[in-house]
């Protein structure tokens, strides 16, 4: 809505300006006209012709430079006491100005090399002593060539009063075109650059209209021109007007939904007609072009405007109020200017297109700006949308990750449970069932039952030791085994030597391997206790590592007993130990020398699980940031 408000405000300001320029001063309404030699005074016998002001006269482009005297009469009651001035609001040919035969100033007029087309006002101070009560004469000696010339009403009066009028007129005829031209130049630059980046028809049309307006403003601001260039300047005016009108027609046709190339060509060709005819006739066509071609341009735009409005109303589309209003104002202003230039209006006035044109440019730029802002807004919306989607994905990733971890935890728990069940089934369960059968058969005496139960409890303790060490610390579990076996060895009179000096403070191994290792050691100790008849049993625990190789756990159970006798080497207990060692990837060797003793050696590689644990932990430390970053990159 901002562009519309700015537009209306500037409209009001411009209207105010027009009203204020209509202020009147003491005006001379008639002039006497006599031809002279160039640069000379009127001959004494010259024929003076009287006309009402404003005075308009034309000459053929072929005509040579001609001299002219213009005489105005000023009647005052008494000579003024303060400074007076004569104001020439629009004396297109300039000239030397005298009051009562005394020159008061000179405005450059056409000479052998130069053409002048003054559009700005001129203010000349008069010495009050020059003026006398009664009739005073103001004489303008000027010169002219081909074209249309104008002497608007001349105002005479106190300097302060006519000075104000002068300033208003100067603003309207000189400053305003400067402003409009500068604005158009800026627009031409901005939209031209924009068009270079983005070949959009609307942007191109605004840029083109701005360029044509710069040319048109230049025509109004160039007031003195070398003789040969005069026709070029006229051509510039026609090019600017024709081009601007053609662009406006195309803008309106686009509003009506017609974007064909044919219309563009036709409008362009018609716009070129004026300058081409001017140059072709060496300026002779100017009156006809001014009279017919220029208004036809206005007509073309007006018809297009009407057509566009009709078409949009029929299609129930928005009326593009800003553009359409500015266009209508510009058409009205152009029509007014045309009438003014043709002298069809009773009062001389200021050219309206000087403000209506730039206003139209601003109006044309607003849809482009609106669209640009809209696109920005959409882009921002898309960005925030993308960001929220990324955040959503982030949350999802985190949830998935949590779920994954939860799953892993549950899996670990399930595996643990499976292991416990398997252990109970294989160990305690089997032992209890077979013991029960023996007891039921009555095959065991009380001591044997106690023995069987004690073994069951031993096995259960083993399992509990293996499980209770939550962090699967093998060392403490083995230590506990020894601690429990110790009294039995003592009772049997066998020395149990335990050497764990070669072990680290804690030894975490794969939980699946803890119980089998405990069973192997227990079995070895039990065998030695029951069968070896040894005096001493020694257990040595050692973890060794050579270089970067996997650390190896070695457990040796050695006794100095009678050794294993023949058939017992392949006994069930030993087979069990072997199979347990094999299941966890360990190796069990048994050496037995009859009469000397038995040596059980168990070797187990550690590092796989030891380092495996830390690796699992680093894998769990999933880098979500990196994943999100990758996702962002992929999305943009």
């Amino acid at each position: 809505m901002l562009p519309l408000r700015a537009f209306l405000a500037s409209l009001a300001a411009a209207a105010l300006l027009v009203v204020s320029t209509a202020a009147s001063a003491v005006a001379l309404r008639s002039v006497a006209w006599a031809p002279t030699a160039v640069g000379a005074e009127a001959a004494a016998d010259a024929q003076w012709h009287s006309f009402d002001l404003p005075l308009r006269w034309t000459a053929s482009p072929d005509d040579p430079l001609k001299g002219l005297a213009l005489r105005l009469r000023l009647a005052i009651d008494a000579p003024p006491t303060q400074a007076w001035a004569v104001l020439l609001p629009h004396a297109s040919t300039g000239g030397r100005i005298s009051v009562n035969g005394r020159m008061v100033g000179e405005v450059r007029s056409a000479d052998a090399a130069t053409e002048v087309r003054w559009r700005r006002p001129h203010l000349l101070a008069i010495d009050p002593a020059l003026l006398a009560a009664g009739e005073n004469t103001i004489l303008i000696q000027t010169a002219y060539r081909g074209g249309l010339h104008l002497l608007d009403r001349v105002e005479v009066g106190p300097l302060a009063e006519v000075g104000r009028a002068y300033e208003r007129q100067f603003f309207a005829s000189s400053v305003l075109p400067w402003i409009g031209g500068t604005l158009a130049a800026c627009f031409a630059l901005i939209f031209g650059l924009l068009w270079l980046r983005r070949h959009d028809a609307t942007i191109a049309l605004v840029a083109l209209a701005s360029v044509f307006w710069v040319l048109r403003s230049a025509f109004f601001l160039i007031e003195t021109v070398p003789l040969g260039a005069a026709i070029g300047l006229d051509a510039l005016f026609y090019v600017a007007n024709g081009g601007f009108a053609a662009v406006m027609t195309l803008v309106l046709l686009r509003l009506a939904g017609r974007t064909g190339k044919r219309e563009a060509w036709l409008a362009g060709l018609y716009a070129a007609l004026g300058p081409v005819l001017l140059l072709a006739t060496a300026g002779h066509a100017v009156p006809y072009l001014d009279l017919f071609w220029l208004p036809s341009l206005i007509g073309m735009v007006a018809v297009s405007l009407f057509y566009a409005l009709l078409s949009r109303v029929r299609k129930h589309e928005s009326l593009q109020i800003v553009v359409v209003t500015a266009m209508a104002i510009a058409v009205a202003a152009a029509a007014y200017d045309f009438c003014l230039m043709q002298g069809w209006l009773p009062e001389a006035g200021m050219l309206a297109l000087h403000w209506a044109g730039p206003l139209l440019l601003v109006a044309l730029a607003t849809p482009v700006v609106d669209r640009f802002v809209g696109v920005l807004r959409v882009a921002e919306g898309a960005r925030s949308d993308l960001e929220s989607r990324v955040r959503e994905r982030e949350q999802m990733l985190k949830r998935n990750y949590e779920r994954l971890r939860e799953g892993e935890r549950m899996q670990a728990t399930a595996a643990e449970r499976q292991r416990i069940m398997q252990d109970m089934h294989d160990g305690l369960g089997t032992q209890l069932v077979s013991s029960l059968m023996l007891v039921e058969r009555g095959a065991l005496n009380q001591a044997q039952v106690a023995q069987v139960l004690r073994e069951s409890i031993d096995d259960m303790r083993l399992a509990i030791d293996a499980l209770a060490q939550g962090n699967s610390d093998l060392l403490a579990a083995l230590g506990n085994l020894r601690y429990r076996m110790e009294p039995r060895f003592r009772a049997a009179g066998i020395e149990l030597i335990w050497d764990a000096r070669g072990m680290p403070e804690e030894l975490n191994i794969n939980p699946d391997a803890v119980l089998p290792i405990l069973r192997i050691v227990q079995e070895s100790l039990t065998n030695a206790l029951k069968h070896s008849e040894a005096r001493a049993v020694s257990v040595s625990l050692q973890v060794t590592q050579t270089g970067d190789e996997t650390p190896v756990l070695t457990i040796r159970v050695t006794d100095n007993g009678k050794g294993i006798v023949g058939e017992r080497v392949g006994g069930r207990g030993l087979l069990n130990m072997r199979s347990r060692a094999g299941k966890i990837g360990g190796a069990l060797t048994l050496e037995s020398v009859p009469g000397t003793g038995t040596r059980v050696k168990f070797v187990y590689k550690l590092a796989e699980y030891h380092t495996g644990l830390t690796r699992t932990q680093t894998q769990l430390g999933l880098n979500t940031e990196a994943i999100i970053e990758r996702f962002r990159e992929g999305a943009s």
Partner: protein
Amino acid sequence: MSSDKTTVLIVEDEPEFRLRFKQIVESEPTLELVGVAANKREAQELIDHTRFDVMLIDLGLPDGNGTDLIRQVSAKRPDVDIMVVTVFGDEQHVVSAIEAGATGYILKDSTAADVVSCIRLLRAGGSPVSPVVARSVLRAIRNRMGGSAAGRTGGPMPENNPLSARETEILQLLAKGMSFNEIGEILGISPHTVTAHIKKIYRKLAVHSRGEAVYEATQMGLLRS
């Protein structure tokens, strides 16, 4: 109450075990049974009115936890040895009992000889310890120190460790399954000294834990310091 006999008080709620411990004590000439309690109330009565050297106590009593009694006796009668009756796989309770003031513990299914030798060990100024209990004690101490990295890796203990370097070393060797004799040999001390160290460690743990309890109570406004 002859001076050469060790007087024993039994607090055990399960009749089977109560009877068994009673028999063990009664059949050992050097021991004298001065009372048997089946619950906390009875135990309190006996504690208040009887003199004894050793208290065998089960933690899980029908009318409450035995830890209170341990704390009470250890505070009032520092010369009494308190022996916790426990089941295997229950090391955490053993450690809390030690923190309350117990200096020994015995498994419920121990042989008569085990029970008697454990009581003797206690009266001789030592304490029993299994590798798992040794490890649990080490852990309890580490946790109190905030589980510092040095403690975790088993390296030298930080300064606020209540245990001396020798005590820590003994615990570590015990945790590996080494016996008192073997440790004595390695360290060049008698096995008896090793068990005496254990008792000292237990007492430190109890004092330390009491200090902590007092500190916490003060913090909570329960005590005026």
